[in-house]
């Protein structure tokens, strides 16, 4: 399934809607004025204002009782016209559907997908023609047989007639929909193969999607992964056994939302460049999640684009701030001597990185006050922003800012290292099951055991040993306390052999004078931090684990691995010369499942909204033109909205291959490929582009006026694939689209019915 669920932006939607409705209202008023003056000459103004005021009075005095009375009449009429006969067709289809569907797929999970698709498609496509016919023929038929004349003589407003019709037909379609939905639900339950694990497939998974970006072969962030030549560009790939990663950032990762576990589900795609080992042939490729809390990456991932500052950026990300300061000094000198190493475009990127990422992250630090470092980066970013190619003064300014930044970083190196940890918890590798929806679902407990790397070991030991020292348990009688081993193994989860190792190393440091014993406490002789000491010891490989299991530790997903409730999950492919493809929706946090009925009902709600919108359009059109014209108008709007709306948007945005209408026609005529373009001189090309600009303008208007019916049908795709229909990305846009068209359509329909001559059949 190729969806990319993006939450609906209500604010933007309302803004667009208001501007569009405003334009249409303005045009309507203008046309009304012109018409009034044309028909009544000088008195046109009065005529127009009277008409408008009476119309708005009508709108203000709508009576729900009268609307309901008209809706009841509509229902009775639909009943008389045997609208429910459509149910018979539905029943017949269900009786024989098994012939067409059961033998299509041997695999149960594929079968159930087809059954749900069939049911939802059948329901919507069977009711659609019925509501289209009824809504388009209702009012014209009333006018033809003059039954409307009797209605309008009653104290019923035209707007109430329109609303009554819309409401009546909508109630009718809802009743049919509910009937069909109930039967359909039972049918799906019965059709589900007996051997099927229904709890696994006939359910509604509730996903929480994150944002996705990639790390390239050098470990640098990029928006896209590798392209393996698949014509379908939905997925990007990461290379196995390299620094390539797909990185997901999940928001609101809290125990309140997720409970005391992390449920990750993925559906990646595998791509091989070689046949692979017998193991991977049979079991599939291996992928691995790593939960990462890396404050340096948070702050500096986008810093250092271009060769000039790349080394600085790498040192910052590695936590080697002293080296970073030295590299910044060297860079400051080169900015004067060799400004070409720092092209303007790279400086712009650095400026953006400082403004958007580095400074905000450093300012919002909770663990330490790094305001002065943030200020230095801000000044450096501003200077980078002012750089212009060939302007020596701007490079001098940049150099000064760079040197100042180097000084600040050097001064605060220890604090930065202390407060910007990197914690990586690699999870157990798993096999990519590919296209087996729901198979790659793994639940992790809140507390994760993992083997720490160098930095993790240093930070852990610095924290624990300094704590023991603070508690006065590290020294005893001017010597290192022999109870350290027991303290570490019993209270801090360190294995006895590693506890002995720590004891030995601390003792040797005391002997060497790096540490000094002061009463019951041990202190660093040169006054530096415990973290700096243990970082050195780890790097000097004095703390290599004596336990074969390594430095095994425990991390809490919510307390230790999230930053402001954001969780970073990196995905790697572990097999050499293999690739794993991923799209944003391919990895999600899975909340507790909802019942299939819940998702099915939401899909039905969207179908109901679609049918009601068709009714609204049909009734509105029928207020202006006769039944057949209204029917074909509504049908056309529906077909374009359902099947061609996305195409229209692509053409308008210029992303459709082949260009506009005229250019495409020329390509066909010239038998040329869209990627080559038309064979024409510059003049002709300009004319073609000009004509296409005009056509695209019309298309742009059409794409705004014609509803995108695929908004409604997308809900079915979720439930077909075993997902719950999300409120923010599917149900809400459907409701907003419906309401967005309902209001102007009621006004237009009522106005047209009010100002038309009922005798003109």
């Amino acid at each position, binding site marked *: *399934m190729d969806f990319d669920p993006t939450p609906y932006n209500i604010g933007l939607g309302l803004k667009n809607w208001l501007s569009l409705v405003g334009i249409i209202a303005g045009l309507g008023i203008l046309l009304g004025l012109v018409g009034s003056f044309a028909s009544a000459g000088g008195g046109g103004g009065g005529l127009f204002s009277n008409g408008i005021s009476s119309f708005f009075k009508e709108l203000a005095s709508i009576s729900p009782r009268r609307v309901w009375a008209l809706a009841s009449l509509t229902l009775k009429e639909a009943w008389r016209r045997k609208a429910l006969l459509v149910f018979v067709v539905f029943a017949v289809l269900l009786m024989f559907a098994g012939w067409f569907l059961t033998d*299509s797929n041997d*695999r149960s999970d594929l079968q159930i997908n*087809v059954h749900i698709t069939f049911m939802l498609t059948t329901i919507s496509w069977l009711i659609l023609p019925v509501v289209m016919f009824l809504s388009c023929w209702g009012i014209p038929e009333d006018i033809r047989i003059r039954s409307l004349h009797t209605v309008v003589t009653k104290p019923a407003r035209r707007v109430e007639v329109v609303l009554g019709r819309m409401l009546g037909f909508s109630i009718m379609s809802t009743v049919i929909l509910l009937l069909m939905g109930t039967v359909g639900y039972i049918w799906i339950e019965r059709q589900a193969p007996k051997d099927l694990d229904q709890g696994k497939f006939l359910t509604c998974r509730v996903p929480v999607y994150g944002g996705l970006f990639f790390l390239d072969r050098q470990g640098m962030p990029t928006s896209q992964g590798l392209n393996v030549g698949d014509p379908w560009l939905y997925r990007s790939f990461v290379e196995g056994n390299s620094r390539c990663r797909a990185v997901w950032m999940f928001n609101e990762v809290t125990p309140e939302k997720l409970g005391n576990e992390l449920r990750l589900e993925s559906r990646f795609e595998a791509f091989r460049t070689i046949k692979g080992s017998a193991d991977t*042939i*049979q079991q599939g490729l291996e992928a691995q999640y790593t939960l990462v809390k890396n404050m340096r990456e948070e702050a500096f991932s986008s810093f250092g684009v271009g060769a000039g500052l790349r080394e600085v950026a790498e040192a910052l990300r590695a936590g080697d701030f002293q080296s970073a300061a030295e590299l910044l000094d060297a860079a400051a000198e080169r900015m004067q001597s060799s400004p070409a190493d720092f092209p303007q475009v790279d400086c712009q990127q650095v400026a953006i990185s400082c403004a958007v990422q580095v400074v905000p992250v450093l300012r919002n630090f909770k663990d330490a006050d790094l305001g002065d470092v943030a200020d230095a980066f801000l000044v450096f970013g501003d200077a980078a922003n002012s750089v212009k190619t060939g302007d020596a003064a701007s490079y001098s300014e940049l150099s000064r800012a760079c040197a100042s930044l180097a000084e600040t970083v050097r001064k605060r190196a220890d604090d930065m290292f202390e407060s910007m940890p990197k914690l990586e918890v690699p999870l157990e590798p798993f096999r990519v099951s*590919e296209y087996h929806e729901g198979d790659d679902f793994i639940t992790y407990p809140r507390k994760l055991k993992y083997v720490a790397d160098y930095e993790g070991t240093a930070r852990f030991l610095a924290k624990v040993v300094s704590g023991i020292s603070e508690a006065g348990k590290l020294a005893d009688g001017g010597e290192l306390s022999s109870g350290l081993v027991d303290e570490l193994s019993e209270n801090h989860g360190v294995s006895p052999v590693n506890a002995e190792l720590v004891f030995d190393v601390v003792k040797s440091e005391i002997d060497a004078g790096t540490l000094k014993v002061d009463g019951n406490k041990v202190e660093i002789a040169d006054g530096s931090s415990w973290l700096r000491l243990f970082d050195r010891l780890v790097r000097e490989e004095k703390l290599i684990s004596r336990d074969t299991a390594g430095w095994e530790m425990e991390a809490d997903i919510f307390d230790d691995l999230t930053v402001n409730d954001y969780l970073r999950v990196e995905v790697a492919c572990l097999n050499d010369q293999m690739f794993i493809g991923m799209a944003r929706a391919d990895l999600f946090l899975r909340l507790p499942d909802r019942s299939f009925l819940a998702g099915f009902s939401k899909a039905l709600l969207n179908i109901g909204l679609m049918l009601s919108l068709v009714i609204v359009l049909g009734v509105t059109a029928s207020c202006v033109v006769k039944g057949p014209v209204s029917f074909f108008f509504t049908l056309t709007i529906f077909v374009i909205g359902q099947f061609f709306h996305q195409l229209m948007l692509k053409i308008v945005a210029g992303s459709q291959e082949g260009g506009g209408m005229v250019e495409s026609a020329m390509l066909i005529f010239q038998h040329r490929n869209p990627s080559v373009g038309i064979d024409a001189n510059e003049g002709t090309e300009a004319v073609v582009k000009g004509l296409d600009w005009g056509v695209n303008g019309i298309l742009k208007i059409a794409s705004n006026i014609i509803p995108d019916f695929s908004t409604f049908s997308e809900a079915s795709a979720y439930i077909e694939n075993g997902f719950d229909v999300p409120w923010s990305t599917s149900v809400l846009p459907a409701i907003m689209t419906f309401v967005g068209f309902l209001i102007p359509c009621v006004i237009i329909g009522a106005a047209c019915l009010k100002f038309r001559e009922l005798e003109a059949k």
Partner: protein
Amino acid sequence: MNNLTSRQRKLVYAGCVLLLLIPIVYLGAPTSDDVIPGTRNAVSGGKLAQMRVEYDLGESTLGEIDPSSAAMNLVLLGLRGPAAGVLHLKALDYQEKKDWAKLKTTVDSIIKLQPHYVEIWKFQGWNLAFNVSREWDKVADRFYWVKEGIKFLQLGTNRNQTATFLYHNVGDFMGRKFGNSDEKKYFRKFFVIDPDDKRFNGTADPEINPQGKDNYLVAHDWFVDANEKDETYRIEGMTHVFARQGPSRSLFDYATAIQSEGQFGEENRSAWDKAYNEWTQVYGYDVFLGLDDIRYKLNSSLAELQSMAKENGVTVTKQQQVWEQNVKMVNYRFWQNFADCERDPLTVDAHKAIYLGKQAYSEGKISNWQDKDGKTQVSEAQTLFVDGLENFEKVFGKYPQLTDHDAYIEEVMLAVYYLEQIQRNNGQQMPEDFPLRDMVIQNLGRQPDIERQFRIENRPDF
């Protein structure tokens, strides 16, 4: 105006109705017998019914009728063409977007609309078995989609019993896709023991392999069916003399496959024997049309050539020329000699020794050792390779026409390369007079390929 009364007029009308009934019954009476699809068996009934059967114009004469397909076509009135077109486009889209469930359902809908459009069966059968299967990563999933493609083609033969090519295709896929692809090691195993334990409980999928046989033997049965169909409905789109090779070639493939899997007993010898007989006694005696419609048999003695020349009304020289041309084209003599050689126990022994030598090599039995008397005993692997090469030397003495057969040359050179590695391991040089030395020297150009093959065979997961 006439003077007939009303009753008389009615009688005249009745007479006319009866008269008209005679030609109607003669022409249009339906058949009273069961039509056996794809046989052209004569049936009773009206003239039109008989002609329908004779010219394969009726639905029931083409293949079994699927009620859902008939219902769908009826409901669509005359719109099945556009509907099928739209479905084809959707199928392409689903395939590009890797929505396999919908692809399969859409393909099924297309063939319900156009059940006798043989090209669709051919294309989609291929598409599922070859294109879709390779999109999946795990070998069991790939196997599933190859099966889907073959089942689809099998259904095609059921619906189109006059389409001989589809029968041939089923045989071809059974043999080639399962036995010749990169995953053949697994596919051949899965063909007998399906990986879907839950459904098939450690047996073969009965839809494609009801008797749990080897894939090449099932392919053989389908090729035999194809050749039988070919008697009535001549295969189109293939040179006839090649199309009819299916049964014997699948037996060759079967014998080669079990040999490469280490079966060297009576089963292997008998497989080659059967292949030889099928090639010479069945395929060899098939009558084909050559240049200028001259009939010939591949397995012909001079007397038979003379007799056929007489039948064809051409000179013996012309007959011989046509025969010779086709014998060369299908490499008839080579396959005859090859099968003859392979069924010889001497050749079986040669293959076996080399196979076991490779096994001993992979098990590390390559070092010479001292016995209790202090005498140096050569390693097991070396003994086997030397045996194999000596046997091959004898085989080439007996079948000199096969000394330039690529597979034999490669097997010999690879055995020599193994031997060289064993010698090197024991700190020795290859002796100057090792068996088949001349053959190796003549083919030194193949050495890089041999070394590559050696590396492949000695990968840990080979």
